[in-house]
């Protein structure tokens, strides 16, 4: 793209202004949380007064938050591992595989993205409470994995689809049997996609709220669920501190993903 045309014309300037406003609309609100977390005041009001680490201190002291943080870390890590394995295999099966009903299989894999999350939440709640998996780590990991797998499949699938098939033929002609071809040629090339998928799976689980609300109990809660409880009561800016920490983790991971994609040498 990049059409020629004067950027000074009124049309273009208006468009540009609108664009800038939209970007502020998109990114701004979350940035607001950061200064809020450092407020010296005791209540949640704007503008923040003074500068203080009190809310971060409170967050660290309060066992609820630290437990929530650890729980989220555990769940997200396990979810990332399981969904990456399942999802990578699935992508290979869907992209390279031939079998009747492939379209339906593909739709099934992507369906968690489409079905309204509340429905998934209560469905899981009913189902997993029968098997007594609610309020436990394995149950939550299973639930989050179902939500995260589509992201892995999409990421790995895209890299697989755009990969030059001749590379595998070349490997075969040079003496590599199918197993060696996969590990020495195919897998290293799709690795950035696998990595990105894993990170997206982690982020999905890390930020997941609705299903978690139904799948957790007071004994075992994830960070987003703790936040949900607090946010509805609008108590104090501790939540702002927590939110900032959550954002930092997510942003760091996203930067990793961007860096990983830059190094994709598929051709």
């Amino acid at each position, binding site marked *: 793209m990049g059409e020629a045309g004067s950027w000074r014309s009124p049309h273009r300037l208006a468009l540009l202004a*609108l664009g800038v406003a939209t970007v502020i609309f998109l990114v701004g609100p979350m940035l607001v949380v950061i200064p809020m977390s450092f407020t010296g005041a005791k209540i949640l009001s704007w503008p923040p007064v003074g500068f203080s680490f009190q809310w971060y201190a409170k967050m660290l002291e309060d066992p609820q938050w630290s437990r929530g943080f650890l729980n989220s870390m555990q769940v997200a890590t396990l979810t990332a591992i399981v969904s990456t394995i399942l999802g990578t295999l699935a992508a290979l099966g869907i992209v390279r595989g031939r079998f009747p009903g492939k379209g339906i299989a593909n739709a099934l894999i992507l369906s968690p993205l489409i079905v309204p999350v509340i429905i998934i939440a209560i*469905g899981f709640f009913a189902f997993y409470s029968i098997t007594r998996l609610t309020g436990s780590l394995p149950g939550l990991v299973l639930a989050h994995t179902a939500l995260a797998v589509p992201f892995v499949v999409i990421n790995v699938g895209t890299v697989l689809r755009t990969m030059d098939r001749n590379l595998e033929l070349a490997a075969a002609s040079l003496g590599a049997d199918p197993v060696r071809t996969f590990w020495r040629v195919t897998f290293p090339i799709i690795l950035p996609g696998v990595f990105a998928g894993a990170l997206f799976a982690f982020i999905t689980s890390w930020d997941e709220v609705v299903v978690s609300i139904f799948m957790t109990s007071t004994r075992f809660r994830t960070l987003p669920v703790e936040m949900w409880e607090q946010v509805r009561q609008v108590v104090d800016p501790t939540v702002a501190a927590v939110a900032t920490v959550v954002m930092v983790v997510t942003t760091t991971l996203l930067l990793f993903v961007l860096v990983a994609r830059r190094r994709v040498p598929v051709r």
Partner: protein
Amino acid sequence: MLFLRPVFGRAGRRTGGPLVNRWALLAIPVLIFLLVGFLAPLLIMAVRSVTDLPAGSEGDPLTNFRRFFGGEANLRVLGNTFFIAGLSTVGCLLIGYPYAYLMRLASPRWAGLLLIAVLVPFWSSLLVRTYAWQVILRDTGLINSTLRGWGIINQPLDLYQTTTGVLLGMTQILLPFMVLPLFTTMARIDPELTKAAANLGASPTRAFLRVFFPLSVPGVLAGSLLVFVLALGFYITPALLGSPKNTMLSAFIATRVQQQLDWGLASAMAMVLVAITLVVLFLASRVIRVRDVFGALDAE
């Protein structure tokens, strides 16, 4: 021993290859997992909607559906859901169309940055975003404090827990789903066409209205349908930023389960929501490949 039989030329059975190749086996684990861990719960819920009947109406499997469509409060919630989803769609369109157009005009580098900007809300925590809106919209929040500080208003604007608040929150989160299909469609429009129109005597406005806009309509439809569908299912944002009169179907279902333990009715409502979702998505798939949009969810 896996025998690699890559197919060259026209793909598909006509090549005389096997109907099922060995790669297919790899898809089995995930399919089993999803069948058991995802599809089964949903099917059970579907079943419950016709089996979990309130006392006295065991003869009529559609009782729950009748209860839903018969209750005035229920219908109001359904109406409200459509209303808010519709407004969100319009809002996303109004903001998203110029934004997508800007992306199209921009150089590849800037377009990439704009794309990242639009994806940022998607990848950040829903709760964080909604909480941020709380901070901004409350009586003592950013907007009101700033406007008061500048002396523009004396009384705080009622933004928190209003429809406006809900719309702002939802629009921000749904914008990527409008911008991406729009941008994809716009990118495919040959830039030479508007130049040709200009050459033939059309002013920029007319060139846009008669040439560009009609060609962008598939993107508009796809984006709108997608945003609408997703908005229907929203739970967190309307619950936090809205008032009880803004209750949407998702929250309604949630309270039926959590407070009244009325699984029958909740399941029935869930089925209704799923049905609406599928119908709207089907319509969207006539216009654009929905997979294209979801394909944008990889790290590009």
